[in-house]
């Protein structure tokens, strides 16, 4: 299993029946392909739909139905469209159960930076700040370390997406839960040792006596 699939499968296990879920652009979108059996969730795209589905077949694309990444998507029976104001009322008002976001850095306070590298990448925050601030649960899915080194750091050096403490970080190496007491190592990826995780992490991790392997199929 490649790293991205591993991450997507592990994140998918966090989804519960009936959840309203918003998946960020990139890695997070893969989560939709790995829903556990028997789990039905509703995917929101912040550009204005609840109930989007995978890309429709050839010849069936609708010019007016895209996700927030600009990809043509489908709509399931029972879908609802929303203007941007309603869409963000759902996000900011605590009606969105889970958002899965990509990450550039997460720090010991559980704060996320994921939208800007000063002088290098200034794409704008889009809906990311609202999602990170307003969703009931924020799950960050990202590679454990990047070219620039550790991404799970003592304190974010990149501009924050939100001051809010996110709820879970899932990487190809580990599952980490930010708490008031700091970052707790909850699970290891199959075949990955605690030492390897600690070595790839700049932030201090609280390591329980028992750190089970990720349960994925």
């Amino acid at each position, binding site marked *: 299993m490649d790293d991205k699939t591993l991450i997507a499968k592990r994140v998918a296990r966090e989804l519960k029946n009936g959840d309203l879920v918003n998946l960020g652009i990139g890695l997070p979108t893969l989560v939709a392909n790995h829903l556990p059996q028997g789990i039905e969730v509703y995917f929101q795209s912040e550009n*204005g739909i609840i109930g989007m589905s995978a890309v429709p077949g050839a010849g069936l694309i609708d010019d007016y139905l895209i996700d927030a990444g600009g990809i043509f998507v489908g709509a399931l029976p029972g879908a609802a469209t929303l*203007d*941007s104001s309603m869409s963000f009322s759902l996000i900011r008002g605590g009606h969105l159960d889970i958002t899965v976001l990509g990450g550039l850095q997460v720090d010991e306070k559980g704060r996320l930076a994921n939208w800007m590298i000063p002088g290098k990448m200034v794409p704008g925050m*889009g809906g990311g700040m609202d999602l990170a601030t*307003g969703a009931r649960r924020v799950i960050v899915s990202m590679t454990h370390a990047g070219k620039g080194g550790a991404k799970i750091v003592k304190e974010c050096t990149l501009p924050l997406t939100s001051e809010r403490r996110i709820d879970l970080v899932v990487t190809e190496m580990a599952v980490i839960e930010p708490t008031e007491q700091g970052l707790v190592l909850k699970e290891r990826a199959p075949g990955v040792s605690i030492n390897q995780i600690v070595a790839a992490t700049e932030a201090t991790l609280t390591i329980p006596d028992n750190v089970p392997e990720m349960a994925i199929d």
Partner: protein
Amino acid sequence: MSKAISLTQAAEMIPDGATIMVGGFLAVGSPRRLLQELARQGRKHLTLITNDTSKPGVMGNALLIENKCVDHLIASHIGTNPETQRQMIAGELKVELCPQGSLVERIRAGGAGLGGVLTPTGVGTVAAEGKREMEIDGKKFLLESPLKADFALIGARRSDYRGNLDYALTARNFNPLMALAGATVIAEPNEIVPIGVIPPDEVVTPHVLVDYIIERRQSNGR
């Protein structure tokens, strides 16, 4: 008194230096013909309030950027258009980035006569710079100010002869909010239908907000 005008008339109505709001999300729901005509006419020094600047090769706001019609951009996301980023870095384009949910609330506030709204989004980030922070019941909020425009340029699915609008799927997005916030509102519908064809409960933007309707591309059946 018909609200129907030609594409050329619509674009000519908007002067150099105007502040415009443009609906759409990655050009879906944008008034594409009108943006193309504005670019063709070589409009200059616009202030553009919009979600994003579309993608290169895709219609929509990208045409205004590529043709250097815009001096000042207020948007939530420009990552899909490298030319926008290039102009910003080169100092040719002033860019104000705003969280998407705050952007839409600012537009709604402008259109609804509100003096501002308090949002938790952006507290403690660079999005808070220059904004007043207020604590309410122990929680921090930013005071976001209203946005208005000289013109709101709106894409719609249908307009009736009077200007009642509906929208298709994710082409709705910012359009109904901007229809509230433009001093003059120009709608570019895909279809123009007789009055009464859009049932009252399906009208999303009531006709009283719409000043002009851009005529069909061509007249059929005659």
